């Protein structure tokens, strides 16, 4: 590990660093494989060290968070949690040298995963219904949500790109708008009974629907589908005009489907942060209570 750091801080570092940075960019190296899995190796080694030393260190009467070994792991874990949280601050701060955001993210991911071992081994596998286990559970939820984030970041962008079909998201919306305009004029000759569902379809907000609809991509009360259903049967208006409207509704539905699929993938990509971030702060609060309680009832 010493050599890893000496590499970073040696004189004449810059020219060499930019050189490697260029290589990295060319190889399109992401945060997961950053610096040839440097942080994966470091945190893997750390986990191994903890697991082995846990087995070797003799703590009486048995391992728990209150032994000297437990306190060591606990201090390490609490420090790590605070540092990992600091990614939120770091990513808003533009810097051009030391610790690229990619390096920082890489370390965040792998050290965060190692926290599973540090935290769990800190407990000595003694869990219960108390603030201590609450802090552990929150930590695990934060880590697992982060793990989910890594998985979706690795897999979903491909699906997002496939669905987009080289359109921007505003272009997707613009397509719907175009179909709406055409629908509006095409529906003019229709009878009032037939215009009502079309009007509803026009009145439908493509971004409506709660979090459930966003994540599942299923919109049960879709007005466009309902209009299509209503007009596809027998209607009172001129069949030719109706057919034109039905065709337009089908096209609008396809465009809406694409947009909704896009929204679904984006929701799947983003939802973990709505768990990860608030629970991190819940964790920091529970962790403070955990630490203060230990010293309060010392």
């Amino acid at each position, binding site marked *: 590990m010493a050599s890893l750091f000496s590499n970073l801080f040696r004189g004449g570092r810059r020219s060499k660093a930019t050189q490697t940075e260029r290589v990295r960019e060319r190889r399109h190296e992401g945060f997961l494989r950053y610096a040839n899995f440097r942080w994966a190796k470091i945190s893997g080694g750390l986990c191994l060290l903890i697991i082995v030393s846990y087995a070797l260190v003799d703590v009486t009467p048995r391992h728990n968070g209150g032994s000297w070994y437990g306190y060591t792991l606990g201090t390490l874990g609490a420090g790590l949690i605070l540092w990992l949280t600091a990614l939120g601050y770091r990513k808003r701060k533009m810097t051009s040298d030391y610790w690229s955001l990619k390096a920082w993210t890489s370390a965040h991911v792998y050290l965060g995963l190692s926290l599973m071992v540090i935290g769990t081994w800190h407990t000595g596998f003694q869990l219960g219904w108390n603030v201590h286990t609450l802090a552990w559970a929150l930590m695990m939820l934060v880590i697992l949500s982060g793990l989910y984030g890594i998985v979706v970041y690795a897999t979903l962008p491909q699906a997002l790109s496939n669905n987009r079909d080289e359109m921007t998201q505003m272009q997707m919306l613009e397509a719907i708008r175009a179909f*709406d305009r055409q629908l*509006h004029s095409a529906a003019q000759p229709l009878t009032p009974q037939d215009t009502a569902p*079309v009007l509803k379809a026009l009145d439908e907000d493509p971004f409506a629907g709660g979090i459930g609809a966003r994540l599942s991509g299923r919109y049960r009360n879709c007005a466009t589908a309902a209009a299509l259903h209503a007009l596809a049967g027998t209607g009172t208006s001129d069949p030719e005009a109706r057919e034109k409207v039905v065709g337009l509704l089908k096209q609008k539905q396809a465009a809406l489907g694409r947009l909704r699929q896009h929204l679904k993938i984006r929701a799947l990509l983003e939802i973990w942060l709505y768990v990860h971030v608030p629970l991190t702060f819940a964790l920091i609060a529970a962790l403070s209570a955990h630490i203060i*309680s230990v010293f309060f009832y010392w």
Partner: protein
Amino acid sequence: MSFILRRISTTKTGKQIIRDAPLPGDAITLGREGSNTIHIADLAVNPHHATISSADGRHVRVQASEGLGFDINGRSVDVADIDSAAGAELRFGGHRLTIAREGDAIILLVERIDELSQSSKDVDEAKAFSLQGVMPGKRVGAWTFAILMLLAFLVGPIWAWQTYKNVDERPKGYHADTAWMSGPLSSAHANLKNDCQSCHVEPFVAVTDKACVGCHTGEHKAMSAAHANAPTAMLLAARAPKGTGEKILASFASAFNRPEGRCVECHTEHEGAGPMPATPQKFCADCHDGMNGRLKAAGHPTELADASDFGTGHPDFRPLVRSAPGAKPVRTLMTKGLADYNGLKFPHDMHLQATGGVARMAASFRGRYDFGKKLECANCHKPDADGVRIKPVEMERDCAMCHSLAFETVGGVTRTLRHGEPDQVVADLTAYYRSTPPARPLQLGGMERRRPGQYAEGQVYNIYFREVAVRPSRAADAVRAVFSKGGACYDCHTISPPAAGNGWRVMAVNQTPRFLEKGWFDHDAHRETECADCHTMAEGSKASTDFLVPGLRQCRDCHVGEGGARLFKVETATESPCAMCHEYHSDGGKPWMPPAQRKKNTAFITKQPSRDTYTVSQITGRTGRNLYNVTWRTPALQATEQGG
């Protein structure tokens, strides 16, 4: 009167173009269909929606024609009369119709005010396409959760502590600081689970001994008797010097206000429900490992030997033995040939032989006692009620099955000599000979006439009547026989013959009830082991003075140190911390051990000695074995021969 339709359109540069067109007729139709005077391309407007007319050129009447109304000033109506001078705004679907008056003309201004469709509305791309629109903000969530956590698990517990600071027992109900409990309390302290303040008296002050002795006023107060009398300087000198790691830990402990040597260092709590764990070995070995030398160097010489680990560093046992007949018991180092005089004669080897007289006699009693083909240890040695120790041997219970003291049967009841009372034995035997005639020969029975020759010397009458005459003096003979070699008493006891003023004397028997006083040995815990596995020398022991208690070496056949340390090859190792045999707080008692580690005695307690053992008449049997019944024989006494 004329209506003027005004349309306003906006150019791309934002410039407004106003076009006015006069409308013919008095009544103007308004609707989606092209045939209307005012054609509004709006799906929300009916094909023939309304008629606008004016009777006097000033007041305008608007009448909806196809059921669908229109809005005026926010209200939905079917017909409206409007003073054009005052003006009005009407809504048809997504369009607004403004009625105004300019000169003589009524101006009708039609504008689209709503978007064509919902999707045509302007959106904030960053918000609409992400989850921001449908989820509460992350920041809000973070604050909410964090504040809830702090309230429930920091403010609440501190408030609970503050409320019940000086209370002995809290009322029932939920107390927020129980959420701080790191693990269940041991069963002894389980009722304190709501009363955190009973041990955690002051905040940020580690649990003090004062909190413990507040309740533990008795035997557990501070230290054991052996340690309590020791001067503090000596106790401090006994402690092993600290290593680097321990120094670092100690500096942390003092930095965080956690003094050493408190009760809770050994008696750890919150380690799970159930009994408290037994104290680990290191709390003893910290001092006792190499203590002898340290104390000597510090000017407190001690006889205590060093002990570090049962498997590797434990001093030899020093059992309590009597080194000579009648001597006082003294703790003596266990060496080969150690003798313990208890006053009994008992060759273990003869009694434990698989063949020979003893085995045959035992076999003949099978079915009446729980004897096998030979005698076993348990036939004579019985455990006490809790199974921990073996009771001292008792004649009536443990020996009399074979070594009967019966001497006469009267009407089916067997009379026995009184054990433990030699004077009574002498008296009983004397009385017996005085009161009973010798057995009458068969020839003397019946009503048949007898021939005179039978009274001659050596004939049956002569012998019988002489026997009757000398009968009382036979008593002394029998008494001597009982107390002499081959007699019932002499076989087991050390006898002193009558001396001046004394009759026959039997040396007192002193059976030591507990040989190892400092350690606790529980026979019950070892009931699955054969006696001879540990008492290895019993089978070959010829004299009762042989000391048959097993030594350290035999223990180590199974018992290893707490961490498994051992000097010998052990097949089934039992990890043995100091506390398995040694009790810290109350010397002499049974060392405390969690019940899970104890094994319940079932075999020894339920297997009581048979009822026979306690009833002498049943021991000797109804018929009696008449071991002491003197039978018909030729007189051997000189005195009778001579004196008649």
